[in-house]
C-alpha cells in the first residue's frame, strides 16, 4: 500500500470507529430504557396475576405477543438476505450494510424468543420443553430452528467482526478501559495472517450457504404454527411462502430504515451512499411485489369460494371490523412503498427511508391481522362465555410489554452500534483497495 491509501484507510477508520452518544443519542437511549423499564414492570404484574392482565380470552388465546413474535421472526430474516444471499451472489455494494442487517437479525431473533417466553402461562416450566419434548409439535420445530438461526446469525456477526476488532484494539485511546478489555477478549487472537483469513473466510462462506435454508425454515415453521390448525385464515397451503416473502420484505424495510438513521446520525454519507438507497429501494420494490402476489393468492382465492367458516372472516377483513387495519396494511405496507420506490426520484435516501418505515409499520399491523381476526371466527358460535372473551383489544400491560420488546430490540442495536463499528471497517478498506487496484 502506498502512502495515500494509508491515509485513506486511516480516514476510513476514523469515520467508522464507534462514536460516543451525542445529545440525541443519549435521549434516544434514555427513552428506550424507559419504555423497556415500563414493559418490565408490566411483565412483573403479569407474572404476579397471570395472563388475565392481558385482554386475551378463551377465543383470542393468542394476541399481540404472538403477532409481535411473528413480526420479530420476520424481520430477522434480513440477515440471511443481505449478508448471505448478496454475499454468495458476489454483490459487493451491500458490504457496508451487512453488519446492520446482522445485528437487526440477532436482536430480533433474541427478542422473538423473549416475547414467546412472555406469552407462556407458566414461564417457570420452560425446562419442560427440553425435558419432555414432543418432536411431533411445530413448537418444538420452531424452538430448534430459532436456536439454530440465532447461533448462525451470531457467528455471522462475530466472524466478520474479527478483523475490525484488531483495528479497534489498535485505536484504543478513544474508548473507556472496559470497552478495550472487551475488544481484547473478543478478538486479540486475530492477527490477520493468511491461514487465519483462509479459515475465517471459508467459515463465513459455509455459514452464508447454511443460513439460507435455515432462514427459509425459520419462517416456514413459524407459519406452520398457524397453518397446522383448521381455522379459517390459517388453514392455507400458501402460508410458508407467504410468510417467507413477507419476512424478506419487512427485513429489507427494516434495513433501509436503519441504514438511513445510522447514516444521518454518524454522518456516514460517504459509505452509505445514494447508490445504496437506490439499489435497496429496488430490492424493496421487488420484494413488495412478491409479497403482494402472495397476498393476492392468500385472499382472493378463498374469497372466490367463500366457504362457510372463511366467509365471516374474510368479510370482516375486507369490509368489516378489521377493514381499516387491513387496507392500511395493504396500502401503507405494500402499495405506497411500491408507488414511491418505483420512480427514480422516489429512490432518494429520504424517500426510501419513508418507504422503509411504511413497510415496517404496515408489516406490524399485517402480523396482527394474521393472528387475531381468525381467532374471533371459531367454527362453533361464540356463546356461553364471558362477554369480554368475544372481542379483543390489547390491554395497557400488553402494549407496554410489546412496545418494551420492540424498544429492547432497538436498544440492543443502538448499543451494538456504540460498541462496534456499524459498517465493517476492514471490508471497506479492502474494498477500497480493490477499487484502487482496478483503477490502476
Amino acid at each position: 500500500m502506498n502512502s495515500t491509501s494509508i491515509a485513506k484507510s486511516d480516514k476510513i477508520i476514523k469515520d467508522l470507529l464507534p462514536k460516543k452518544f451525542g445529545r440525541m443519542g443519549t435521549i434516544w437511549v434514555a427513552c428506550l430504557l424507559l419504555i423497556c423499564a415500563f414493559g418490565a414492570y408490566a411483565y412483573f404484574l403479569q407474572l404476579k396475576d397471570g395472563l388475565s392482565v392481558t385482554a386475551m380470552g378463551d377465543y383470542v388465546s393468542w394476541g399481540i405477543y404472538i403477532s409481535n413474535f411473528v413480526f420479530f421472526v420476520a424481520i430477522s430474516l434480513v440477515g440471511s438476505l443481505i449478508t448471505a444471499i448478496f454475499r454468495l451472489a458476489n454483490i459487493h455494494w451491500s458490504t457496508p450494510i451487512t453488519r446492520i442487517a446482522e445485528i437487526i437479525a440477532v436482536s430480533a431473533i433474541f427478542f422473538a424468543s423473549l416475547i414467546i417466553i412472555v406469552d407462556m402461562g407458566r414461564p417457570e416450566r420452560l425446562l419442560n420443553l427440553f425435558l419432555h419434548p414432543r418432536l411431533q409439535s411445530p413448537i418444538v420445530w420452531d424452538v430448534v430452528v430459532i436456536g439454530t438461526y440465532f447461533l448462525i446469525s451470531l457467528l455471522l456477526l462475530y466472524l466478520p467482526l474479527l478483523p475490525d476488532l484488531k483495528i479497534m484494539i489498535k485505536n484504543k485511546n478513544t474508548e473507556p478501559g472496559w470497552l478495550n478489555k472487551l475488544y481484547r477478549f473478543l478478538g486479540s487472537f486475530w492477527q490477520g495472517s493468511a491461514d487465519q483469513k483462509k479459515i475465517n473466510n471459508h467459515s463465513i462462506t459455509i455459514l452464508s450457504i447454511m443460513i439460507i435454508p435455515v432462514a427459509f425454515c425459520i419462517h416456514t415453521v413459524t407459519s406452520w404454527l398457524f397453518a397446522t390448525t383448521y381455522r379459517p385464515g390459517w388453514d392455507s397451503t400458501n402460508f410458508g411462502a407467504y410468510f417467507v416473502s413477507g419476512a424478506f420484505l419487512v427485513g429489507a424495510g427494516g434495513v433501509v430504515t436503519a441504514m438511513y438513521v445510522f447514516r444521518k446520525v454518524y454522518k456516514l454519507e460517504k459509505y452509505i451512499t445514494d447508490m445504496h438507497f437506490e439499489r435497496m429501494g429496488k430490492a424493496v420494490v421487488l420484494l413488495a411485489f412478491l409479497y403482494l402476489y402472495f397476498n393476492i393468492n392468500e385472499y382472493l382465492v378463498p374469497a372466490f369460494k367463500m366457504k362457510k367458516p372463511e366467509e365471516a372472516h374474510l368479510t370482516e377483513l375486507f369490509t368489516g371490523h378489521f377493514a381499516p387495519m387491513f387496507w392500511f396494511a395493504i396500502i401503507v405496507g405494500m402499495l405506497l412503498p411500491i408507488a414511491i420506490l418505483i420512480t427514480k426520484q422516489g429512490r432518494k435516501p429520504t424517500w426510501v427511508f419513508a418507504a422503509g418505515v411504511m413497510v415496517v409499520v404496515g408489516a406490524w399491523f399485517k402480523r396482527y391481522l394474521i393472528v387475531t381476526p381468525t381467532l374471533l371466527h371459531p367454527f362453533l358460535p361464540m356463546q356461553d362465555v364471558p362477554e369480554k372473551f368475544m372481542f379483543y383489544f390489547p390491554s395497557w400491560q400488553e402494549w407496554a410489554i410489546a412496545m418494551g420488546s420492540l424498544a429492547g430490540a432497538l436498544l440492543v442495536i443502538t448499543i451494538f452500534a456504540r460498541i462496534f463499528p456499524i459498517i465493517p471497517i476492514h471490508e471497506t478498506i479492502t474494498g477500497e483497495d480493490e477499487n484502487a487496484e482496478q483503477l490502476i
Partner: protein
Amino acid sequence: MKDEKDTSRRDFIGQGLLTVLALSSCGEKANPFHPGDEVKPSGEKVKLLSVTGEIIEVDKAYLKPVPDVPHLSNEEERIGIPGKKFAMVIDLSRCKNLKKCQEACNHMHHVHPGQSWIKVYSMQDADHSAPYWQPTTCMHCDEPPCVKVCPVDATFKRQDGIVLIDSDRCVGCRFCMAACPYSTRVFNWEEPKIPLEIAQQPYHCETSVPQKKGTVGKCDFCPDMVRKGELPHCVSSCPNGVFFFGDMNEDSVTNGAETFKFSELIKDKAGYRLMEDLGTKPSVYYLPPVNRNFPYEAGLENEAAREKEMTKH
C-alpha cells in the same frame, strides 16, 4: 394389539374363576361383588357379615360401595384404563337448554367461575333448518389435533380413548387451544377462584382438580367417576337424559335410566359426529333433533329464567 394384554386378561379371568370355585366353600372370596372385575386385590382382608349371617373375609379392594381408591401415579393416569374405549352420545331431541350438565361439571371440577367446560350452543345449521340446542363437551378425538401440537406432552391420548391434560406439565403456550376446532378448551388466565381446601389438594390428572393458573382445562370424561363404576357428572345430572355414556367395546351406552346398544342407537337415529370432514375422529356422537320432546323456544325460556335468577342475586 392382541398380545400380552389379552393373555393376561384371560389368565386373570381364568384364575379368578378358579379362585371363586375353589374358595366358594371357604370364607374367602375373590371378588364377590363383580366376579369378573379386574380390580387388583390389595392384600388387606376385611371380615364381613354375610347375608346369610356367616362371617366371611373379603379383600379390602373388592368392598362395595367402592371405598376411596388410592390415587394412581402420573404414569398410570397417562396410560388409562385398559380394554375400554369411551364414547358419548348426545340426544339433541331431548335438550332443553337447562344447563344442569354445565352446572354439575363446573361445580364438581371447580372450574373458574364464568368459564365452562360444557357449552350449550344455540345452533342453526342453515337459514331454513331448525334451530336446536347443542351441548358440547370435549370430543376426545381419536386423532386429536390438540395432542398433535402440544410441545411438552401435557395433553395426551390414553388407551381408553380419553384425552387428558396434566396441569403439572402444561407450560401455557395455548397451541392446543388454537388447534382445537371445537373451541372446547378453556385457559386459566388467572388464579382460579376456588375454595382454599380445594386449591391445596394434591393435583391428579383424572380428577382435573385443582385447576392451576396459566394452564389449560377441558372436559375429561370424568375418569375418576368411571373407575368407580359411576357415570360422568354431566350424564347423571341431566334431568332429560340427554347424555349417554359408555364403552364402545361393550357396545352399550347409558344415561343412568336407559341403556341402549350403541351401534343400534347410532344406526336407528342416524347419529353423526361434529365436523366429521376435519378428520379428527371424535368420540362424541350426536342424535339429530327429530321428534323433539320440547320445542326450541323452551330453551330460550330457560335462558331468560336463568338470566332473571342472575340479576336477582
